[in-house]
């Protein structure tokens, strides 16, 4: 992690929860919004496509929910919590670069009506996730 310059240090906001597979989740009005972290978008590089789930799809915590593609890679995105997809970010179809530009805002992927909101407690907080990212970077 030492040779990562400060401007590359991933942004890990405190008010989100994180999965070890680099998705973030945030509760708003009893719905969980899901996206990928700044660390994930940096590792992927320029995102060119997001294969979104369909509204109504059932997703399970830890299982594949959709796919994000850069030019040279395709990464599965796992649902951080279980539930039903109630909204997807259709703007990504035209502007996948929002995942790179604003991963925690306009670059969100989908929203879930969770079956068990307590699953949020199984996710990492910002400190835990930062440690997790550092340990992954050290492995390289």
């Amino acid at each position, binding site marked *: 992690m030492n040779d990562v310059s400060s401007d590359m240090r991933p942004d890990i906001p405190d008010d989100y929860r994180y999965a070890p597979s680099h998705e973030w989740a945030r509760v708003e009005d009893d719905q969980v919004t899901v996206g990928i972290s700044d660390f994930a978008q940096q590792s992927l590089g320029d995102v*060119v*496509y997001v*294969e979104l789930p*369909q509204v109504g799809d059932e997703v399970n915590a830890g299982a594949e929910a959709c796919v994000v*593609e*850069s*030019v*040279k*890679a*395709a990464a599965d995105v796992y649902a951080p919590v279980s539930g039903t997809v109630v909204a997807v970010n259709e703007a990504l179809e035209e502007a996948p670069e929002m995942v790179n530009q604003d991963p925690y805002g306009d670059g969100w992927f989908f929203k879930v009506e969770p079956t068990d909101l307590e699953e949020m407690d199984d996710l990492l907080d910002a400190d835990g996730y930062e440690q997790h990212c550092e340990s992954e970077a050290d492995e390289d």
Partner: protein
Amino acid sequence: MLTSIGAPSIDALFDEIEPALKTSHFDGIDEGVDEMTMIQEMAERARRDEAGPCFTGAGCYDHHIPAAVWDIAARGEFMTAYTPYQAEASQGTLQLIYEYQTMITGLTAMDVSNASVYDGGSALGEAVLMAVRANRAHPSNKTGGPRRIAVAGACHPHYVDATTNITRNQGIELVPTGTTDGRVDLDALTGMTGDRMPVAVIVQQPNFLGLIEPVDEIADWASANGVLVIAVVNPTSLALLRPPGEWGANGADIACGDGQPLGIPMASGGPSFGFLCTRSSLVRQLPGRLVGRTVDRHDQPGFTLTLQAREQHIRRGKARSNICTNQGLLVTAATIYLAIVGATGLSRVASRCHERTRKLVGTLTGVNGVRSHFAGPYFHEHVIDVGQPADRVADAVAELGIVGGLPLGRYFPDLRNCLLVCATEKRTDADIARFGDALQQVLNG
């Protein structure tokens, strides 16, 4: 070189391989020969297969190939190049594929095309896999039941076989609808309702027997029922016939076929190439390579492989297909062919083939005991009934130096007296007369 390596002998370079594995069973292979001898041996065999005029089509056609096509396609710069992964070193191949994609989508009136797959049969297999991926709304995705693909009318039996074999391990089942007078049994197709509703329907136009299928009715029925339409077409015919993108109100969803008629020798059926086109909305379900136009660092236009994240070298087990071939050299020939003949030339080839076939049918049905088997419109190919087992007739005609059509009994037992015949623009009046005389001699002595 061994000194640099620090090895005493070439054998030492294999010292990680246990000695017991080294073979001593290579003696079944002969000593090598020089190029001259090899060519002489091969030429002796090739001569044995030289035949007179060819009246067999059935997916492979004896068209004229302009001399320039293979003079250019066989240039080492095309023929001995690798897959264009290093775009900057492959602009020739990449731009050519972009031009090919444009031409084949123009012919089929579809939005997008990949850079080709192996052949027409395997293209249909890929089209079926693609349709199953694309039709996410189909109930079989929820129930986990078999994914049925209807085969409407007479589709090439080898294509159906290859497709069945390529797709059967993924819970996919091809269901023939049966035929009436050689064409689709529309009642049987539209009777596939409820649980039997297929994911997609395959239609070949003109069909395997040369007959014109009611593609508009099929496409409109499919569209109204959430069934995807897979068109199988002969590219030459598309100079004249309505293209898949214009079938029914909404067009076909996927169009495929074999590119052999576009400047590729028959050569025992391969290599040719399979083309595979679809709607823009399904582009990410396409397997195989795609070339896109973009710009370089200096904002100059250039071409590169794109959407590679669909493919096996990135997606591995989740790839759209395991395919990592496009039949590049054959696409090169087809692209040059289409550039040289253009739309006018291709429509002349198509209308001339049809005119020759009608002349052929007229001549053959003038032979005592021979008649057309099916009534109604046909294009470029036709089924004639010779009144006795057609396989023996074809062999006897072959003895007289004529490749005289395909006996159909092997595929359709009730057509055992029938030959599928075809004449391309290359068949002269004299060739046709010769076939007529040969048939007369075989049937009536």
